[in-house]
């Protein structure tokens, strides 16, 4: 992370709201994007993340709230003055212009000298690995190549901020992996702040410096991917960021640095996700990620439960196990080993370390 948290934010979003008819697309959303950061807006479709991006670009006007770009309020700044080029989900490559014409578009608008335009277009195309295709029309390119042209079209302007709207969603699975690395490389090689919108949590977790998780127009969490994955502040994030076992529990007190809770399988110890500790007697849920649930071993006392194996599936690197613990369905993910798989129907003790058990108080 090329972050210096002290510097002025590249983008500041202050309590932005936007309604479309009866639907609140954005409801009081605030966040900062730091200079040079790879910032993700993550959420299910319809959560408002694309609306947020379009507001940043000036393609929509917020009903309330403020947007600052490099410290400047952009309320009255029309889209074409914002200097925040966008990578459109459907590319929006102009079919009447060649690859070079598309990439040169923004430079022409800035009235750059012709020679400079040619040189910078060449350089931008080389950067995305498309040298020599500058005379082609967009229709003559593959999907992956078109995606690269869109990136070049934005990069060539050497902007402070770049907006990416689901840039990988139109690519097939194999291209997607390659392009993911490509975007990461481009970000690393520049000082540009990326605001990257996606509904794919694995994209966000693997690339982001920080992630803003959104749902139904609200910001639900903001933080580094590892923090959000392992210590989600609410049930929505726990669920949306990965597979989650969420176990109903009641807080009984504290136990050292842990919170003591009562679960259907006895007293457990767990860590807190939020800053504020729930009072004794509060109903909460305990998150255990499937990869943290394992057959009980001889080690120190952990959080234990008895469960029967319902099904076992080999996924390659992991084995997905479905468990039934007194009517509660649980999942476990074990590392693949050339050992016999757990047999369906087998009953046994399973456990999770207190450090891998997270108390979640919010829905």
């Amino acid at each position, binding site marked *: 992370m090329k972050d210096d948290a002290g510097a002025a934010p590249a983008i500041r979003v202050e309590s932005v709201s936007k309604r479309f008819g009866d639907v609140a697309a954005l409801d009081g959303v605030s966040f900062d994007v730091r200079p040079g950061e790879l910032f993700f807006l993550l959420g299910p479709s319809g959560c408002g993340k694309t609306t947020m991006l379009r507001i940043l*670009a*000036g*393609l929509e*006007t917020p009903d309330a709230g403020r947007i600052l770009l490099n410290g400047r309020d952009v309320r009255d700044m*029309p*889209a*074409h*003055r*914002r*200097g*925040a*080029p*966008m990578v*459109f989900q*459907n590319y*929006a490559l*102009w*079919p*009447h212009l060649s690859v070079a014409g598309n990439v040169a*578009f*923004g430079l*022409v*608008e*800035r009235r750059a000298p012709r020679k400079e335009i040619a040189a910078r277009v060449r350089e931008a195309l080389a950067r995305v690995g498309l040298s020599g295709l500058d005379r082609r029309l967009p229709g003559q390119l593959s999907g992956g190549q078109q995606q690269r042209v869109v990136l070049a*079209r*934005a990069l060539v*302007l050497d902007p402070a901020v770049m*907006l990416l709207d689901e840039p990988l969603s139109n690519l097939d699975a194999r291209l997607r992996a390659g392009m993911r690395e490509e975007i990461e490389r481009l970000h690393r090689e520049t000082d540009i702040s990326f605001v990257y919108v996606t509904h794919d949590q694995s994209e966000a977790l693997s690339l982001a410096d920080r992630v803003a998780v959104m749902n139904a127009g609200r910001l639900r969490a903001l933080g580094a991917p590892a923090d959000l994955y392992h210590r989600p502040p609410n049930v929505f994030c726990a669920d949306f960021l990965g597979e989650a076992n969420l176990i109903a529990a009641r807080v009984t007190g504290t136990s050292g640095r842990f919170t003591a809770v009562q679960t259907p399988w006895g007293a457990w110890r767990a860590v807190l996700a939020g800053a504020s500790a729930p009072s004794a007697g509060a109903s909460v849920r305990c998150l255990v990620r499937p990869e943290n649930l394992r057959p009980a071993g001889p080690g120190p006392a952990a959080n234990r439960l008895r469960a029967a194996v319902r099904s076992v599936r080999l996924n390659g690197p992991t084995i997905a196990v479905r468990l039934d613990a007194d009517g509660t369905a649980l999942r476990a993910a074990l590392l693949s080993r050339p050992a016999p798989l757990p047999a369906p129907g087998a009953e046994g003790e399973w456990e999770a370390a207190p450090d891998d058990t997270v108390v979640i108080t919010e829905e």
Partner: protein
Amino acid sequence: MSGRRGSCALLAAVLAFLAAFLVWPMLDVVRRAVTDREGFTLLYLRNLLTEPLQLEALGNSLIIALCTTAAALAVALPLAWAVARRSFPGRTLLSGLLLAPLILPPFVGAVGMKIVLARSGALSTLLMRAGLARGPVDWLGAYPLLGVVLMETLHLFPIMYLNLVAAFANIDPSLEEAAVNLGAARGRVFRRVTLPLAGPGLFGGTVLVFVWSFTELGTPLVFGFRRVLPVMIYDGVSEAGTNPAGYAQVLFVIAVAALGFLISKRITGRRRDVATLGRLSVARREPRLSAAGLALLAPFATLLLALAVLPHASVALVAVGRRWFLTALPEGFTLEFFARAVGSDLTRTALLNSLGLALGAAALDAALGFGIAWLCVRRRIAGADLIDTLAMAPLAIPGLVIAFGYLGCFAGRFPGTLLDPRFNPLLLLTISYAVRRLPYMLRAAHAGLEQTSRAYEEAAANLGASPWRVVRRVTFPLIAANLLAGGILCFAFAMLEVSDSLILAQTEAFYPITKAIYVLMEGLENGVNVAAALGVWAMALLAAAMLWAAALLGKRMGQMFRAG
């Protein structure tokens, strides 16, 4: 946003133009129809329905319109069904050829048919030789209504056909399959499902053909049939400033047209959702036309096309025929009339006038159509719907009415200026041509904008292009083909516009082609031949323009003539 002010200015400009050259002249016509020196009066409207001469003209016009509409429907329905719902060899060719009659103007065709149908003409001669008639028959003199109806049917049935094809093609096949599945036999499916679903298209075509034939001036005028409403209006032009009778007649025409379009709009609007329900759900594959069907269709279509081309073939024959008198074909052939058609001052001026007027009208339409469509589709600002409705209105307003309105509205108020058609009609002619064909341009521009994703423009704004630059660098190039095609259509129609040309152009220096043809026909020896040659020149220009437009628009060409 900075684009906002520009949009409002554009809206105001377009609105002002439409108000001055569409709304005001129409309102002026209405006002003058119900006032005379003493003030408000319904006398002239009442005269229209009580004076025997006017009543006869009105009756004749209605008969012509009704018969033409019925005949066009009878001809178009089987053709449209076959082309839309069945596959057969030559289908593409047929659907293209069926457009030809629409493009060939009946006014020019009538010049030729007048010769063919005359007492000493080819038809009479052929019938006598075959022993089917005892003496020469003046067909036009004996059956003037029939002649007009025939000409107009042959000209207008493609409009009906295009509306029906579109209506049939828009019906989701699964709706018909559902009917079959629930036990309806084929004939019953057509009657209970297909035809009702095609209703809006059918009605839209009917109204267009009815209004068009009710107000057609050129054909009866050339045939010398003066007892129809449009010709009476034309004959009253010289006293347009003083006598309200003409305005009352025009008001009546407006009322008929408006009524038809109101009804059609209601019917078209209500059913649209159903007819297009899930249109793309099933890939359509039309069944083959049965052998019996083909045996019926082939001669029918051939005969129809032959008939439709006959008037224009006869024009061509008149243009090259040396003597065509009591013979089946001319006795000798010559290119003299072609040479005279481009050689004389009258005709050369007319050709140049028409070219300039048509180019001007097409350019004006391109600007107006693009501006209006952009305001409606992209800006959606308040008032855009109003100008859209206004700009589409000329579909229902006959050229006769517009020309008459201009004459009454501008001639007296701005004497000696470019707005006075008696002084110099070129500006008003350009504007009237443009206003009349604006709906076609608007459709072309609308279609272009709707097929062009907004994202292209957003991307341009996002990369630093101001609203005006976005239009120039992205929007305009992307829909240029649509605008060009629409412009060519406007150009083609303007070249052979009849009613406004005849009414507005009153001095020889400003005659467009059509007026020159009309004047030549009435004039000196061989005038008809020269008129025909001039007509052939115009048709050649027209055909070239239409072929070009068709190549640019492809299948979308048909959409331009639909009602809904």
